[in-house]
């Protein structure tokens, strides 16, 4: 992680930039389960709906080892590399 010194007058908090929102979903979609109870059920339903609504799209399932810790670096890199969109089932 790189740290830089703030070159501004610090009157506004530093913001993370959101990626521009595409108007369509296409290509590869990751479905990420954070492993909270029944998240898998939600994703099963979602996967079925999306498969019907977005026939050309590839859907891949992923799961965090536990909900209480951030996703492992390797998992994040894998999702980032192999997909264009992520849908995450959060909380319960």
């Amino acid at each position, binding site marked *: *992680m*790189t*740290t*830089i*010194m*703030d*070159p*501004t*007058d*610090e*009157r506004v908090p*530093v*913001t*993370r*930039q959101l990626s521009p929102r595409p108007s369509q979903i296409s290509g590869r979609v990751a479905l990420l389960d954070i492993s909270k109870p029944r998240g898998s059920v939600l994703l099963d339903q979602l996967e079925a709906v999306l498969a019907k609504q977005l026939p050309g799209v590839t859907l891949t399932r992923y799961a965090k080892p536990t909900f209480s810790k951030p996703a492992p670096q390797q998992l*994040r*890199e894998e999702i*980032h590399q192999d997909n264009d969109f992520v849908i995450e089932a959060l909380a319960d």
Partner: protein
Amino acid sequence: MASAPAYQLANLAGEPVESPKGTQAIICFIKEDCPTCKEVMPVLDAFYRRFSTEMPMHVIGQTQQGNAALAEAYQPAFSILDDSALQVSFAADIETVPTLLVLDAAGEVASTLVGFVRDEWQQLALRLGSDSAAGNVDLDWESLPEWRPGCGSLSVDPANEPRLRAMAEGSPIRARRIDIGSQDDEVEFMFDQGFSDGLPLVPPTPERVLAMLSGTARDSQEVLGQMAPNMGVVTVEKVAINAVMAGCKPEYLPVVLAAVEAILTDDYNIHGVMATTMGASPVIVVNGPVRHRIGMNMGMSALGQGNRANATIGRAVRLVVRNVGGAKPGETERSTLGNPMKFTMCFAGWEERNPWSPLHVERGFDAEDSVVTVFTMSSGPTLIVDQDSRTGSQLAGTLGQGLQTVMGPKAYFATDCLLVVVPEHVDTFMRDNYSKEDIRRRIQEVSARPVRELVADERSATGIKAASAASMDDASLDKLMTKFRRDEDIHIVVAGSDAGKFSGAFHGWVTGSVGSIPTSRKIEEVS
């Protein structure tokens, strides 16, 4: 564990109050934005009334506005001390407010009460009052809550803590630190944050900023001024951070600092310069020994491109205006066209090739002083080509013809200009022993026009309005008007290579107190 801090803080009347020394004392840290601190105000008041004749009791508040509000609301017998700088709270390791410290007779912390636990405070009152016959603290203890948690002290708030820690450790770098995610590209991140002039920036890591600060002996927290439009506080550190981003070397920093000081003056008026739709820009000229020490370019291609010092010094100044001042195109920066000088425009005068007084000496400095002069120019450089004139008079004549159209052919008394005379033209002038004054005089003679020719007409609607001209008599209309209000509005420097007969002219903006006045600053001598 909280330790006894030493301090001098101002009370609400602005009077300095010293920390207790070598005596039993009570110190309580509070902040207004804390319900428990508010609950505790009457308790502190009662403690103060009972004990302040026997020992010092200080109540230290963490914001100026909050302290005033508490005083207004509770009218306590004590005057709250101002620790809005949070340094005392930080030094005392205060994590929660309220925190009450009791110092023993040796001045060490004997008790620490965090938050409000009624029994603790009641016991304390009894202990402190046990030696005296004055009775107990005057409070209806039963009406107070049994327990209230405290709130976070502002000195451990993540917004403040890193800065306070840096100050406490004597670190020269105190700016907010920004952590860039490990998966983020640093260069993209800086673009996304809006720090850039459009070109990539060097990430200003703490190490690079510390290295940059080694280029100056000035204190990193020294305030140079406030930069419009946001009136952002410009410190040496903030300039250093932007200088790193621009690509400067540490030895360039004193020049950048002096240039920033120059543009912060009321005379220079960076606000107007940056905001104007006319697209004006600082043009920075450097004189004196610093030029060679840091390797500036005053010869071939002096005005660009290729030289790191020239390019990055100008860029650093522009980045300070953008990032600390907040001047951005589309917001307060409204230039219609803009111009490339807004990226960077900085060069050195070739004094050794200059037979006349160099710019800084003309402006009152010693030849051995290193000086930066900042002009405001709206366009340039525009070449004035003269490969034919053999006399000083004819060459100055060409320059006069070239300068006649600065800001428009009928714009007279409107502006100034910066003339960069190249070495071959210098040689032509010296054949006739032409001085700078001679050049200026001849330029004015050649470019002068009768008022009559400066009136708006069918060909061009610029100039003196027809209605005004109509009321003028022939004598007035025939009067010759010089292009420039004063000869001194023609600024002259020497730069460029030994081969080539094209001098360059920068066209000014608005001169005088309404516009921008050229400003010089001595550059710090760094051994």
